[in-house]
């Protein structure tokens, strides 16, 4: 899109080993020529869309994990709209879209149908964006969790209602500019002290598996999907997916922005079983939140016309708390996965 964008041929700065150096058994699902291509090319997502990337990796990993025995419920939102403009579909999985708020409940119904039909091999994923998950779909999500229904719910979190044109959700970070939290007035952007942490709320339900992941580490995302599909009951995966359009970053910087969110501590990557944190992806090269914020025009008001030291420090404090809370700098404890 922008002339300044530099084409990159490989994912830099992830510390992951190139696939060709790895044993075949641990190579990424996406590197397999026989991958399912669950979300096939030709869809209408914007350039640099983190959600399209995350969904493709997540569903391909799930399809491999369950040997293709998968059905998917999808909430209304970007992912639904850009993938299925009638009469086209990018989905190479059995896929149902019902409404904005009910993907988790539709997933429950699908799982019940498969059970009663004796098709125990068929597994269910329900998925949606942050609006469809943490706001309007929250009651159905919580209901599915507390009943421990055999559904993996994947939230692709791009931190606002992007499909309707960038409005604040309860996943929108403090200070971020959206169309409903404009960069105007004494405290421009989204207010501090609001929002909800749905991975922690999911853990409070005591469900067997909760994890966060990011498109910054696609191998970790694949691993967590595989791990989730090896478990029965209600599971939750919260994937951080930058939206270049909504965040105001370069379309070539999706992965870099996602990485800085993780490496600053603003988006903690961890996993939990039965309500207890069992693994975290530790920060390898810590960066100040400023490095992350500066890349995105949704935070531009923090830096111009003059630096908003107070609120930058408040965001840094959020990252610092995450680092303490989840032990993100603790080198002695690594996640169980490679």
């Amino acid at each position, binding site marked *: 899109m922008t002339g300044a964008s530099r084409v990159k041929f490989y994912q830099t700065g992830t510390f992951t080993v190139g696939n060709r150096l790895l044993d075949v058994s641990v190579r990424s699902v996406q590197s397999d020529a026989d991958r399912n291509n669950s979300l096939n090319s030709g869809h209408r997502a914007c350039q640099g869309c983190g959600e399209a990337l995350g969904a493709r990796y997540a569903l391909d990993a799930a399809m491999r994990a369950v040997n293709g025995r998968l059905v998917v419920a999808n909430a209304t939102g970007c992912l639904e709209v850009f993938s299925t403009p009638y*009469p086209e579909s990018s*989905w190479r999985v059995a896929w149902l879209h019902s409404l904005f708020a009910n993907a988790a409940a*539709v*997933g429950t*119904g699908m799982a019940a*149908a498969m059970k009663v039909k004796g098709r125990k091999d068929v597994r269910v994923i329900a998925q949606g964006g942050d609006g469809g998950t943490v706001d309007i779909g929250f009651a*159905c999500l919580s209901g599915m969790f507390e009943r421990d229904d055999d559904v993996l719910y994947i939230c692709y979190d791009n931190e606002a209602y992007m499909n309707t044109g960038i409005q604040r959700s309860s996943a929108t970070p403090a200070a971020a500019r959206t169309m409903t939290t404009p960069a105007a007035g004494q405290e421009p952007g989204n207010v501090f002290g609001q929002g909800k942490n749905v991975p922690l709320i999911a853990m409070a339900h005591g469900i067997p598996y909760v994890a966060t992941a990011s498109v910054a580490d696609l191998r970790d995302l694949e691993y967590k999907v595989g791990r989730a599909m090896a478990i029965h009951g209600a599971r939750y995966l919260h994937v951080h997916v930058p939206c270049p359009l909504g965040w105001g970053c370069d379309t070539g910087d999706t992965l870099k922005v996602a990485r800085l969110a993780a490496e600053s501590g603003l988006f903690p990557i961890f996993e939990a079983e039965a309500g207890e944190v069992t693994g975290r992806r530790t920060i390898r090269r810590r960066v100040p939140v400023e490095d992350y914020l500066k890349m995105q025009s949704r935070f531009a008001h923090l830096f111009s016309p003059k630096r908003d030291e107070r609120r930058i420090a408040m965001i840094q404090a959020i990252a610092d708390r995450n680092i303490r809370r989840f032990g993100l700098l603790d080198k002695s404890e690594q996640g169980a996965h490679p």
Partner: protein
Amino acid sequence: MLKQCEGSIAIAEAVALCRPEVICAYPITPQTHIVEGLGLLVKSGKLSNCEYINVESEFAAMSVAIGASACGARAYTATASQGILYMAEAVYNASGLGLPIVMTVGNRSIGAPINIWNDHTDSMALRDAGWIQLFAENNQEATDLHIQAFKLAEELSVPVMVCVDGFILTHAYERVDVPEQSKVDAFLPPYEPRQVVDPDEPVTIGAMVGPEAFMEVRYLAHHKQMQALERIPQLAEEFRRVFGRASGGLLHTYHTEDAETVIVALGSVNGTIKDVIDQMRAEGVKIGSVSLCSFRPFPTAALHAAIGHAKRVVTIEKSLSVGIGGNVSHNLRMALQGRDTKVSTVIAGLGGRAITQTSLRKVFTRAIQDTLEPLSFMDLNTAVINRQLERERVTRRTGPAAEAILRDIGTMAARVS
């Protein structure tokens, strides 16, 4: 098997006989006893191979049913009142996706003011949602309609609402013949969906449709209901052959052949109406009635055949289309095109107010005298209304109207002679 039981329990047993595979349960008065009854049947093992899911809302109830039905399971839920409005979006979605879900509506008013008693406001609010709406006149018909509903829904790939008057039917103990399993199995084949979410044949269901095709999709929904107009009487006849009794169909007529005055109503009030007609017939009055069993699709042709010859038609309606009047009468006029039949709408029984024989008789008599207004409200306490209007005229802020009216009429509110 003949038994004396509560309407809700008869309905629960009828639903169980249809071998539902997924039942979504959420309590709301006056429907609750139905899902309780089904819960007991599942938990005790009498209804096997059925997933009974205690959901967290009516919206989830319909959504779980959508997921289950889309994967090929026979799905059922029940609701009422606020519940059907809370699930409204999913109600439209189920019909749009062509999912043959069957839902009982234990008809109840909609608040505010909150009111748990019977009227038809809830079903009427969703009359255009693309569901077939069948209204039961008594508990035998409520029982039988559920068995017909699954067959109708699955043949046409359209969801069906069976509307049952709250309390008046759901909580009434009556003699009901609950059919035998073997007969239900003979009548209702297993559900074979037209399209399913299935990893063996992966398809995309629920895609976005723009202006280029949306009209056609909606027309097809209408077309299916026109097919239902033909299928509903056939199913009632098939049902009669298997079970030996008449239940369902588009409408029931009562002494309409030579009637100059025809009363039209939905649901249980038809029992009271028939009693009044019996009395007036004994006095030589040419009066009859039509009980509309199918409100969606609306049986325009059948109704024309039944009432086209009448001088006047009176609808007794348990819902109010605020700002205009009757829902039934406005639909009914389609059946009277080209006729100069006088149609009077009587709004009655809102929020559970008793519709008595005395009041019905007064209304019918005025209709015959041609003094009945085009729109009237049965047993309206005009003194109370006038006092409230006077308060509002004098003072802008008069407090909440419902509470002020309650204070006016004291503790005798429920007593209508």
